[in-house]
């Protein structure tokens, strides 16, 4: 309606600045249409400027709200008319957002939050000997006095005692600590006091809040009374605060109690008894590196002074507590974060693609609307509003999925990820995800809208004739190629990780773990079992009782078993130089029979290998080969440096050679020797194999223990399934998580390929009709469509394979004996993507074969 001639000068009527300002709050089209009229009216009507301005602002706001509601309801109606599109788009967003919610929560809880201690940033672990790592009490005492970089230094060692006199005796897991430990963590008591220097070697105890509430009914008068642990009375001096968390290199934990470590005890005074973790606060301004150098200097001096106890010492190391705890999972979590980000990109590409395909189908609607006067801006806004609705629905669903996913993963997560207890979906995570959603909806809405703007002009020119527009087509094909490439990358990563997990859990362990259980032997009070003979006799009766439990096939006593840790012992061969770090174990004669470890040479232990008989040992093949270079070592001698009170290090004669066993899925077969239990005078566990009918097993074992001595607490029973799950936890979790993400990506890629193929078929209806009319066979049409799909899939596959080849090396911490370029995995994944492409394109292809020649004419 623009006048093509000169306007009279007074037609551009001046307006009061206040009105101009008020008008600026109104929607643009209103402003453009009526500014002039309002100006003229104001001149002739002499209204109150303030009243008019206020009215304009109110009307402007009203119109904007009205407009937004109209856009929203229009978007809802449009989406309701395309349910397939809407459902696929919402699900795509929901899956991607669900993944992001879950992974971001884990990332935040584990990697981004500081440890729950006041000076967490200065908290460090002091590794007395890198690799083995723990302090002996005397080394720690010297270290504390000589170091210069630490403000506070404390020791903690694991400790486990039987609490009696409070109902059925129960085993509690606590810690032996020195007075520095609480100072390092800056822990405080809720009642009484914590341990201090005066407690060293005393029979005092601090209870954890839970222990206090469970066994002492939360009574504050408990301070000053005694608790009976292992038959001895300990004076309760305090109760720790409820949130008190103990720290260990494996993670944070909640101990049941703390007792002072006992330097007057005979074992603790040996420099070889390295049982304490050193934790410290750095002095302000001191770097971890400087502290490490200082620790190295001090410990080197200690080692120099006492060479006998530090034969294999390598170096000391100080590391940040945070890095130590989260280090093992840091890379995996960032990789997961990368994976879910890629997933979100795939989902977005998918939605943009679906939107473009739908926009092309809606082209005439949009062209008509624009011809009817809807501005391009309005159409763009409409598309963004539609996307916003999808993003909102997908986001809400996704956050729900994230919650559910985390809960589903709780059991495994708690086992394999340190600090898991701090993982939750909190406001920060929701805010982050909301930001992602906003960005997603603007991007995915704007891209089609922008191409729409360009196309509208062409669309009008083409007067609604069907036919694809090259720019949008390139964008669509490009997006699917990108989607396929990213999916291939993700699926390949998942494939490699799953393959690693398979390889890992199928390594030869050297023993038969089916229906195998470890059952703890209780610590026996000196009052009832004064010496080792009495204790060993009780253990023998326990083994007999376990054997008599229905379903138990066999049982034997031992000190330790594979997958439950082990003892590293410096060992020498008499007459040869060199100290060897080998594993050591002490076992009953039946141990190898129960574990099904084959005897390779010589004989197994017998009951005659007692404390007064010849000192003997058995070794595994790895030890025989590594120390002697042959398996024929029966009759030869080793000297294990076992330092224990009552057995001085002595030369032992090898009587047998057994097969190697692994102490963990990812560990090598290490050299190991075995001693007769009675010659080392040690006890630890009973190993039992059942026939697989394990219902009520724990209760039956408990009864068997009580039949030997009612004062024995219910033993801890752990199956090898559990031990395996713990050992392979990180790999299992990685395999599960990455496969889940890969499957989601694959589904999204399928939808993307389907959309583009379906659209191509629709666009070529006429062509197919004509081809059918001139005698083309169904098979040729079908093949043509599939071939087209495979052509762009091929581009995606090549790109994706290159991408994967470049990126999979970053997976190394999650791979086990699997090359990042494993050809089997790559081949499999490529085949999978090809199969998916064919599958996704098959429905449109079949539709193409059903096109009747006549329909091609009708279609136009």
């Amino acid at each position: 309606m623009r006048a093509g001639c000169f306007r009279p000068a007074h037609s551009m009527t001046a307006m009061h600045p206040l009105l101009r300002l008020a008008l600026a709050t109104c929607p643009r089209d209103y402003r453009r249409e009526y500014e002039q009229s309002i100006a003229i009216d104001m001149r002739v009507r002499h209204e109150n400027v303030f009243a008019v301005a206020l009215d304009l602002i109110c009307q402007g706001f009203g119109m904007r709200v009205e407009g937004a509601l109209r856009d929203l309801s229009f978007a809802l109606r449009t989406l309701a008319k395309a349910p397939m599109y809407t459902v696929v788009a919402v699900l795509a967003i929901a899956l991607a957002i669900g993944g992001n919610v879950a992974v971001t929560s884990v990332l935040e809880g584990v990697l981004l939050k500081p440890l729950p201690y006041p000076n967490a940033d200065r908290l460090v672990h002091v590794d007395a000997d890198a690799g083995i790592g723990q302090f002996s009490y005397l080394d720690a005492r010297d270290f504390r006095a000589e170091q210069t970089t630490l403000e506070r230094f404390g020791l903690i060692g694991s400790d486990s005692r039987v609490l009696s006199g409070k109902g059925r005796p129960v085993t509690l897991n606590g810690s032996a600590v020195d007075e520095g430990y609480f100072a390092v963590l800056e822990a405080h008591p809720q009642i009484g006091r914590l341990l201090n220097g005066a407690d060293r070697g005393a029979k005092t105890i601090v209870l954890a809040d839970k222990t206090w509430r469970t066994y002492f009914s939360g009574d504050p008068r408990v301070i000053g009374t005694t608790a009976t642990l292992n038959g001895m009375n300990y004076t309760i001096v305090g109760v720790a605060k409820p949130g008190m968390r103990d720290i260990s290199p494996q993670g944070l934990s909640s101990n049941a109690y703390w007792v002072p470590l006992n330097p007057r005890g005979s074992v603790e005074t040996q420099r070889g008894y390295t049982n304490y973790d050193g934790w410290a606060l750095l002095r302000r301004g001191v770097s971890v590196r400087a502290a490490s150098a200082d620790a190295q200097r001090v410990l080197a001096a200690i080692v120099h002074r006492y060479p006998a106890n530090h034969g294999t010492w390598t170096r000391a190391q100080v590391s940040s507590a945070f890095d130590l705890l989260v280090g093992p999972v840091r890379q995996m979590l960032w990789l997961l974060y990368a994976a879910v980000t890629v997933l979100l990109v795939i989902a977005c590409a998918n939605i943009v693609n679906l939107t473009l395909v739908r926009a092309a189908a809606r082209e005439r609607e949009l062209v008509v609307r624009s011809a009817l006067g809807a501005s391009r801006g309005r159409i763009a806004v409409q598309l963004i509003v539609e996307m916003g609705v999808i993003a909102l629905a997908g986001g809400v669903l996704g956050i729900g999925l994230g919650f559910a996913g985390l809960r589903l993963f709780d059991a495994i997560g708690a086992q394999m990820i340190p600090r898991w207890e701090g993982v939750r979906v909190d406001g920060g995570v929701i805010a982050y995800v909301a930001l992602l959603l906003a960005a997603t909806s603007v991007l995915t809405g704007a891209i089609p809208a922008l191409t729409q703007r360009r196309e509208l002009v062409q669309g009008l020119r083409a007067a609604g004739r069907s036919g694809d527009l090259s720019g949008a087509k390139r964008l669509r094909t490009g997006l699917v190629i990108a989607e396929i490439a990213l999916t291939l990358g993700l699926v390949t990563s998942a494939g490699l990780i799953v393959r690693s997990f398979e390889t890992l859990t199928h390594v030869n362990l050297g023993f038969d773990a089916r229906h195998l259980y470890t059952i703890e032997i209780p610590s026996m009070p000196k009052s009832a079992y004064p010496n080792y003979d009495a204790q060993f006799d009780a253990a023998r009766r326990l083994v007999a009782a376990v054997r008599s439990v229905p379903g138990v096939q066999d049982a034997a006593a031992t000190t330790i078993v594979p997958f439950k840790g082990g003892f590293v012992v410096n060992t020498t061969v008499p007459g040869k130089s060199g100290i060897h770090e080998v594993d050591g174990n002490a076992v009953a004669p039946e141990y190898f029979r129960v574990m099904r470890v084959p005897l390779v040479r010589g004989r197994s232990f017998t009951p005659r290998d007692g404390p007064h008989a010849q000192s003997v040992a058995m070794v595994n093949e790895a030890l025989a080969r590594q120390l002697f270079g042959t398996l024929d070592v029966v009759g030869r001698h080793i000297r294990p440096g076992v330092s224990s009170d009552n057995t001085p290090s002595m030369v032992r004669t090898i009587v047998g050679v057994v097969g190697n066993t692994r102490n963990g899925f990812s560990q090598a077969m290490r050299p190991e020797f075995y001693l007769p239990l009675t010659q080392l005078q040690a006890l630890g566990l009973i190993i039992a194999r059942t026939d697989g009918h394990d219902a009520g097993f724990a209760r039956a074992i408990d009864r068997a223990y009580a039949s030997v001595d009612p004062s024995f607490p219910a033993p801890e029973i752990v199956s090898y399934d559990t031990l395996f799950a713990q050992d392979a936890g990180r790999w299992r979790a990685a395999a599960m998580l990455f496969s889940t993400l890969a499957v989601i990506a694959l589904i999204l890629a399928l939808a993307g390929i389907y959309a583009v193929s379906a659209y191509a078929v629709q666009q070529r209806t006429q062509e197919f009709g004509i081809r059918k009319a001139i005698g083309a066979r169904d098979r040729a049409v079908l093949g043509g469509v599939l071939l087209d799909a495979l052509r762009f899939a091929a581009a995606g596959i090549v790109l994706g394979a290159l991408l994967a080849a470049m990126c999979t090396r970053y997976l190394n911490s999650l791979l086990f004996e699997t090359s990042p370029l494993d050809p089997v995995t790559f081949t499999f994944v490529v085949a999978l993507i090809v199969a998916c492409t064919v599958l996704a394109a098959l429905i449109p292809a079949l539709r193409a074969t059903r096109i009747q020649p006549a329909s091609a004419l009708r279609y136009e």
Partner: protein
Amino acid sequence: MLRERRDPSSVLPLGASAFYVLLALADGDRHGASIAEEVEAATDGITRLLPGALYRYLKQMTLDGWIVEHEAQDDDGRRKYYRLTPWGRRIAQAEAQRLDSVVRMARARRLLPAGA
């Protein structure tokens, strides 16, 4: 443009201001200020339409096809004039009839003097 022949009662009842705008246009084309003046005069100054609200009504009515606008020159320059469409007139008639029946009901209940 083809318009669906809807029943005008589907948009009733009208807001008072909207009805006054239609009434003002019933006896001929008017521009915005003239509509406002007419409404104010007809209601003894009780209903005052400020420009913001007035043009919001006019815009919506134009979009809905109740009125059409055209430009014409007058003493104050080129300005927009509004005219009732047949559809707009039917709506105004329907609203008037509705109000008439309301008034008759009020009379029957003796809320108004008969035949005043």
